[in-house]
């Protein structure tokens, strides 16, 4: 109401005006506005006053307010004061919050989650404002979850052009502690309604997309969109009428410019277009054959950089260059198709296939698998270490292959041995691919790892660049380690080409000789050279190798350590990186000798305890580390920060899925599962331009979120879910993402949780049911119970399987059974057990078994009892087990036997009991011939899959997750599904002998089967029915939105006009009957828990019955039963005004 009043105050002449002066009207001072409003509001106020209950004319006049408008002004002022007072209080009490909402003033419209009061609190605490009454001048954002259609249609008059945002915007902003852009949080209803610029562009321009410029245009579109978005977030007046046209103008201008640029450099269009794709979507470029293409794209880069569309002006000056590059690109044009990301959904996979770092990273696991037993051998090191501290006997060899990545590749090219060679993804001379390794001749030219190819080529024009050969690396690394392990059993692998050996124990041998022997053998075996350093500890050995390289070895005796270190530049020490070096340099420390001058305490003070100690130790050549095993990896993950460009959320999700797959594979490769998941995102810094490295990540902010789950996992789906959720925390524009990494930590060995691995499909889950102790699902614990407590349950199994079998079914069942294995049969059997649970048996079980059983059923048992009691609702408290309607004979027997043996006999008894029941009911359904087969099967005690769903307690089924249910149904032979309803025993009937009046419907199973499954059985049944009416109704099931409820299906039926079956025919009765059956089952299903649903259904039925004779008959037939049931269950009648309808109106 409040909104209405102030809004209508604004409407009228002012409204039309608003759309023209977008900004200026905001800046108008309040006084002129309020004046204007006053004149408007006079009438309004009076109207309101007349309506209001207590305000009489006189009291209104005597009040200090001349009219309603001034009253509201005063009220708003007071509210504001209150808010301010509260805000200052809350901000005083809580200094930790920062005023992220400064300048934001929200108005909450309608029902929101969280409530408006909570939103108000957030505003209070975080420096925002909260308006109780809408005012276009004070409010900056309208918060609402949902809008009525009328407001959507007339959104401008509702919102006054202000952003309409979902409440999560506030929450998320609070969560990340900064004001987020509201744009992604725009109300969905609006967001989909509003024509976006992109649609404008695609509709208008993309017809030309066959043309050469299409992609470039697309890119402009993106650029401009970006800008628009940015602008929109800054300026809430984005949607003001005047603005878009301005924008359009700008865009077209820009577009023109670009077109211009394009015509000038026509030849590059091809590559540039492929670039534009790349820039928005992840792209894999297979370096081996795409470098040129790649390069020319790079040249085009500055022109088509999507973040700066204006840069396109500069395209002219690039003309020459690009024309030069064009031959390549045209030649390779067709190639790009198959390598562009748009065509390559396997970006992540390919990325890692081509990644050296990935190779090194995953090599470790490989290594560990190859030499798994070794770690144990090192345990004795402790005793040794005491000695090693003071003796000089310790001898460590550090061995390192010489420029591993190059030499492995060129070992088959002897002619290249003395030529400068480097390994890199791409040998494009202009490219920004990084050199990963260079051989010594190349290093002489100053070529270093990490250099861009173009720089390297500039240093050495005849540099040969070769691609990786991962298979060869693997092979050589394996040979390398085989040799090391042959000589010494204490090997610490550092990397695929580098290791420490502790040869102290090999007393007899001179470490120097040993080292040369190893090196020799390595060379003979692999054709690659290795260098070795020998010293008393790992640090010195490593430093020695540095001196030894290439292809040499160096021994640093303990006496020479000081001398060696004295002039050693600090950077040579492991653990000292750029930052530390820089810090030390500032203190004029450049060598170890200088470092030694500084006291340990001072170092620790300046660099932290650990680093300080390390510096002190290392500068003296002290290294207490022991040659040990590879450390257990603490985390497993994958990160991609090259080539990551997303166009929209969908790309991102797709990418995340791939990443999850990769991580999952890695986890499985390491045989671990993790509990903590960290998603890292590299986000382009606001001011960062396009990175120098092609497709690189450039200057990025690193963001990360992590979460821990209770159960370790390596399952892709779980990973994906978690990742999606984590990604949701970030709130970054996907276009700004330059790198994504997923890391899994808190690893657990997979062996412990192996059984839980494939829990998703019923089958696999069945197999492990007995083994896994921590299944959450009730049913599995039932299964366990089944297997655990009574192993002789086979007899029972046979029985339950028997319940509806015919000869044909048997064969099917058997094959099913064998394929699924034993566990399977046990499992399925165990589900019926719940409904078969004989309370007499349960009661007489030993008490501990009893409680265990109850626990396993997770309380379902209690439900079951309550259900089986039927009308006995009013009797006693419910926590004790009471026998339902047992046959006397059985009850007696079970009471007579002693508790322990009883459980067995009782189960058997129960089984027999069921056979009896079965034999009695089956002939009823007219398939008498089956009974023979049944009894035979029963005697044979075959382990059959119980195929009858009638064995299944519906309450249990309903509690089962949907996919489980589906699995369950799948595992039934197909023809079963239909038979069930007709063949199944009438368990329900036994307990609720209520619907006696209708012999047909009682006979053919009121077993609540029709409503089991997804879609429920009746849908299938009706679908294949030859009755038009039923088929029609089955169709309705699919049409209705929430098909769980009959009411929604009926509603749908009403909506679709029909009279198809009103002509009486033979099928009429059958249809009515089937429908009755359906209804009766539904009533039984719902009457206790959801009488409202039944009520709604019958009201709908009544409405239908006015339209259709068919429904009239159905209604008249079922209604008495409904009332019967109501009376039975609730001791009431449903109030449907006229109970029996006689004819059509």
């Amino acid at each position, binding site marked *: 109401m409040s909104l209405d009043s102030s809004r209508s105050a604004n409407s009228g002449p002012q409204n039309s005006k608003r759309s023209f002066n977008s900004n200026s009207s905001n800046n108008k001072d309040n006084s002129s506005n309020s004046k204007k409003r006053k004149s408007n509001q006079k009438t309004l106020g009076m109207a309101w006053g007349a309506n209001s209950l207590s305000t009489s004319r006189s009291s209104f006049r005597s009040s200090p307010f001349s009219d309603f408008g001034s009253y509201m002004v005063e009220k708003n002022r007071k509210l504001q004061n209150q808010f301010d007072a509260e805000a200052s209080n809350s901000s005083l009490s809580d200094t930790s919050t920062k005023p992220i909402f400064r300048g934001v003033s929200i108005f909450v419209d309608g*029902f*929101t*989650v*969280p*409530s408006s*009061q909570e939103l108000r609190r957030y505003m209070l605490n975080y420096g925002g404002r909260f308006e109780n009454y809408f005012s276009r001048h004070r409010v900056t954002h309208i918060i609402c979850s949902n809008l009525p259609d009328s407001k959507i249609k007339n959104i401008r008059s509702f919102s006054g052009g202000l952003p309409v945002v979902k409440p999560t915007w506030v929450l998320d902003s609070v969560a990340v502690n900064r004001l987020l852009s509201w744009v992604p949080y725009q109300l969905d209803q609006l967001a989909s309604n509003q024509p976006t610029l992109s649609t404008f562009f695609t509709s208008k321009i993309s017809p030309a997309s066959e043309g050469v410029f299409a992609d470039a245009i697309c890119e402009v579109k993106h650029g401009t969109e970006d800008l628009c978005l940015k602008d929109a977030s800054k300026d809430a007046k984005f949607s003001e009428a005047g603005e878009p046209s301005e924008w359009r103008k700008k865009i077209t201008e820009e577009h023109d410019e670009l077109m211009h640029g394009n015509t000038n450099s026509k030849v590059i269009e091809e590559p540039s277009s492929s670039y534009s794709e790349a820039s928005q979507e992840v792209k894999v470029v297979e370096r081996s054959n795409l470098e040129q293409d790649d390069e020319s794209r790079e040249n085009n880069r500055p022109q088509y950089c999507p973040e700066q569309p204006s840069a396109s002006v500069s395209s002219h000056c690039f003309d020459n260059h690009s024309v030069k590059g064009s031959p390549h690109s045209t030649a390779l044009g067709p190639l790009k198709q198959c390598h562009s990301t748009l065509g390559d959904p396997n970006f992540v996979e390919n990325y890692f296939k081509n990644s050296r770092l990935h190779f090194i990273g995953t090599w470790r696991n490989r290594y560990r698998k190859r030499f798994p037993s070794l770690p144990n051998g090192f345990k004795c090191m402790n005793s040794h270490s005491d000695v090693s501290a003071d003796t000089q006997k310790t001898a460590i060899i550090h061995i390192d292959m010489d420029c591993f990545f190059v030499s492995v590749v060129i070992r088959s090219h002897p002619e290249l041995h003395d030529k400068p060679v480097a390994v890199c993804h791409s040998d494009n001379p202009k490219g920004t691919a990084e050199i990963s390794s260079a051989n010594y001749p190349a290093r002489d030219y100053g070529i270093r790892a990490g250099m861009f190819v173009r720089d390297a080529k500039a240093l050495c024009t005849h540099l040969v660049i070769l691609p990786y050969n991962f298979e060869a690396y693997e092979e050589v690394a394996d040979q390398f380690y085989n040799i090391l392990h042959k000589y010494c059993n204490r090997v610490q692998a550092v990397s695929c080409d580098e290791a420490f050996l502790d040869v102290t124990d090999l007393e007899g041998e001179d470490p120097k000789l040993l080292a040369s022997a190893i090196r020799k053998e390595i060379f003979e075996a692999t054709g690659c050279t290795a260098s070795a350093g020998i010293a008393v500890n790992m640090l010195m050995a490593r430093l020695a190798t540095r001196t030894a390289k290439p292809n040499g070895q160096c021994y640093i005796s303990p006496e020479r350590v000081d001398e060696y270190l004295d002039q050693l530049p600090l950077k040579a020490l492991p653990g000292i990186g750029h930052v530390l070096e820089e810090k030390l340099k500032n203190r004029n420390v450049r060598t170890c000798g200088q470092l030694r001058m500084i006291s340990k305490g001072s170092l620790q003070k300046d660099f932290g305890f650990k680093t300080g100690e390390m510096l002190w130790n290392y500068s003296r050549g002290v290294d207490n580390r022991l040659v040990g095993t590879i450390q257990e990896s603490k985390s497993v993950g994958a990160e991609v920060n090259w080539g990551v460009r997303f166009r929209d959320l969908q790309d991102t999700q797709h990418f995340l899925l791939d990443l999850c797959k990769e991580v999952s594979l890695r986890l499985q490769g390491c045989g671990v599962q993790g509990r903590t998941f960290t998603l890292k995102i590299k986000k382009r810094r606001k001011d960062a331009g396009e990175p120098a490295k092609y497709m690189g990540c450039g200057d990025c902010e690193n963001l990360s979120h992590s979460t821990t789950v209770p159960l370790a996992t390596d399952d892709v789906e779980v990973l994906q879910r978690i990742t999606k959720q984590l990604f949701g925390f970030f709130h970054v524009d996907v276009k700004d993402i330059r790198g994504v990494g997923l890391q899994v930590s808190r690893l657990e060995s997979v062996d412990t949780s192996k059984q839980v691995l494939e829990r998703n499909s019923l089958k696999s889950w069945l197999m492990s049911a007995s083994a896994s102790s921590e299944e959450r699902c009730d049913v599995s614990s039932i299964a366990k119970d089944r297997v655990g407590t009574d192993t002789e349950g086979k007899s029972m199994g046979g029985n339950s399987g028997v319940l509806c079998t015919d000869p044909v079914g048997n064969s099917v069942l058997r094959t099913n059974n064998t394929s699924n294995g034993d566990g399977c049969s046990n499992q399925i059997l165990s589900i019926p057990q719940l409904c078969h649970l004989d309370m007499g048996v349960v009661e007489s079980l030993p008490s501990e078994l009893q409680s265990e059983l*109850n626990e396993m059923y*997770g*309380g379902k*048992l*209690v*439900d079951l009892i309550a259900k089986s009691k039927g009308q006995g*609702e*009013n*009797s*006693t*408290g*419910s*926590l004790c087990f009471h026998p339902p309607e047992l046959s006397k004979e059985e009850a007696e027997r079970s009471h007579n036997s002693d508790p322990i043996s009883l459980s067995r006999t009782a189960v058997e008894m129960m089984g027999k009991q069921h056979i009896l029941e079965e034999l009695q009911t089956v002939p009823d359904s007219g398939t008498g011939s089956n009974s023979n087969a049944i009894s035979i099967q029963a005697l044979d005690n075959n382990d059959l899959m119980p195929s009858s769903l009638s064995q299944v307690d519906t309450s249990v089924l309903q509690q089962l997750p949907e996919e489980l249910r589906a699995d369950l149904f799948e595992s039934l032979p197909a023809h079963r599904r239909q038979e069930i309803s007709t063949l199944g025993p009438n368990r329900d009937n036994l307990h609720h002998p209520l619907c006696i009046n209708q012999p047909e419907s009682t006979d053919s199973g009121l077993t609540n089967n029709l409503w089991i499954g997804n879609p429920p059985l009746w849908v299938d049944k009706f679908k294949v029915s030859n009755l038009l009416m039923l088929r029609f109704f089955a169709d309705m099931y699919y049409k209705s939105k929430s098909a769980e409820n009959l009411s929604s299906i009926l509603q749908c039926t009403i909506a679709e006009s029909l009279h198809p079956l009103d002509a009486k025919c033979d099928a009429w009765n059958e249809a009515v009957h089937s429908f009755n059956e359906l209804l009766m089952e539904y009533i039984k299903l719902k009457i206790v*828990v*959801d*009488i*409202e*649903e*039944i*009520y*709604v259904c019958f009201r709908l039925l009544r409405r239908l019955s006015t339209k259709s004779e068919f429904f009239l008959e159905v209604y008249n037939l079922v209604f008495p039963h409904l009332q019967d049931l*109501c*009376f039975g269950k*609730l*001791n*009431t*009648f*449903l*109030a449907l005004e006229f109970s029996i309808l006689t004819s059509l109106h």
Partner: protein
Amino acid sequence: MERKDNQSPRGHIAGILVEFLEVAITSVVFLKGIYSPGAFERRRYMNVVVQRARHPQLRDYIHSAVSGLLPFIEKGLVERVAVIFFNTDNIPVERFMFKLTVNQSFDSKVEESDLEFSLRSFLIKLSVSQPLTKVLPCDCRWEITAYFRSLPQVRNSKDTELWISTDTKQWQQPPLITPIKSMNSEPLGVQLFLEHPSPSEPKS
């Protein structure tokens, strides 16, 4: 109205239920217009607007009645809670029946937001169900009655004393019911329906 923390899930559920009943019963009383609208004030509960009795006695009656039920609900003894409106002859004219089912063996953590969502729908539906109800005769009386599954053992604790067995007149014929709302959000199921005397009920 504040809930106690560190309760068992069952106690927690019972707490929520009792709190909800208090609000819902107040809404019913407001709906029937027994008292002037001035006796109520607008309040927000579960993020919807509800009524709250302003008169201390009225508020107290409802509050103490439902909070007296707490121990019984916790034990699962209460089957229904009814708000019964009588005419001057003390014959019930209309009953609002809350049928409660609390899964006693539910032991895991309660999804409070789900529960809140379901209960909220009651309050919303209740506020618009005026047309379903009957116009009450003037000078009518109302009371809160609870139907127990079994009579609780008489204990000397204070909470049981609040509730006394009643000899409220019942209809002789099974009543007609009009369901208003049903919900089932594990472990709690609540159904609300209106009960009216059946047309064949002998008029006295």
